[in-house]
């Protein structure tokens, strides 16, 4: 789904503030961790900033499904099982998991979320509200 430009601008502002990156680094396809250098302490900051900018509530496990990724039921040999992948898709309908599915190494999960995913997530939340 195409990204709403208004949503993108607000998300961009939050990311520029939270990550200390330049405006032009925040593109739709940029990954949060790999391209923008987000670290675990940044995610809480990003969540707080998005909640404020969009007046929404963001339960932590919706954006960062640590509970699934650390659950022995859904992980085997450091990879997410098919059942786990189904769970992730259910939890994160806004994220494009195609690339992750090809080689679902848990460690790589953090690097898959893109700016576009984040925009889609926020759009879903604001519609639901």
């Amino acid at each position, binding site marked *: 789904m195409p990204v709403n430009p208004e949503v993108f601008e607000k998300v961009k502002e939050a990311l520029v503030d939270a990550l*200390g990156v330049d405006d032009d680094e925040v593109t739709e396809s940029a990954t949060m961790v790999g391209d923008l250098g987000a*670290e675990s302490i940044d995610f809480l900051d990003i969540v707080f900033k998005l909640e404020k900018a969009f007046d929404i509530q963001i339960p932590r496990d919706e954006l960062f499904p640590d509970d699934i990724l650390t659950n022995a039921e859904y992980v085997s040999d450091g990879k997410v099982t098919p059942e786990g992948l189904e769970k992730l898709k259910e939890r994160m309908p806004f994220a494009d998991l195609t690339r992750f599915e090809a080689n679902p190494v848990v460690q790589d999960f953090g690097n898959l979320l893109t700016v576009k995913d984040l925009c889609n997530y926020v759009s879903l939340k604001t519609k639901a509200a």
Partner: protein
Amino acid sequence: MRFSQLDRIIALEKGKSICGIKGLSLSEEYLKDHFPRFPVMPGVLMLESMFQASMWLIRATHDFKFSMVVLRETKSLKFQGFVQPGDAMHVDAEIKKVDGSLTSLKVSGNVDGKLCTSGRLVIDTFNLADRESTVDPAIDDYMNLRFRKEFRRLCNHLDPMDLSDVQAAPFAVTATN
């Protein structure tokens, strides 16, 4: 400067970047308060180290012509790891942008290559006499001399030149580690 939070400058390229070291000793009195049972370098002193490294870079870049170098802004400043007594923090600062009297820098600190702090700083540089008509420019001159002397102390190990001559021509630091 009694509140010195940098022990040594190991590399400096004027207008570009600086690298320095700050060691943490258990004998620092403030570690009894921060924290009594878990002595670690306060995050704000990591900030002060990175600011002071940036300050020396800016002073050296301007050949010690500006007396006041003050922190105006920090952006996305993070504390990723603890610095403990016995650790030496390596501090890096790199100039990203200069806009009038304001310099933006990217800064970080690491211990044995492990990142413990990072962020961006915006620093203002000026002379008191240029901003306040009542100030005697001699105050700026005095401060600039004092900072030049202090700078020499941080660079002592780099250059065997005569250190009593603090009024000498701009101090060119080219040595690396």
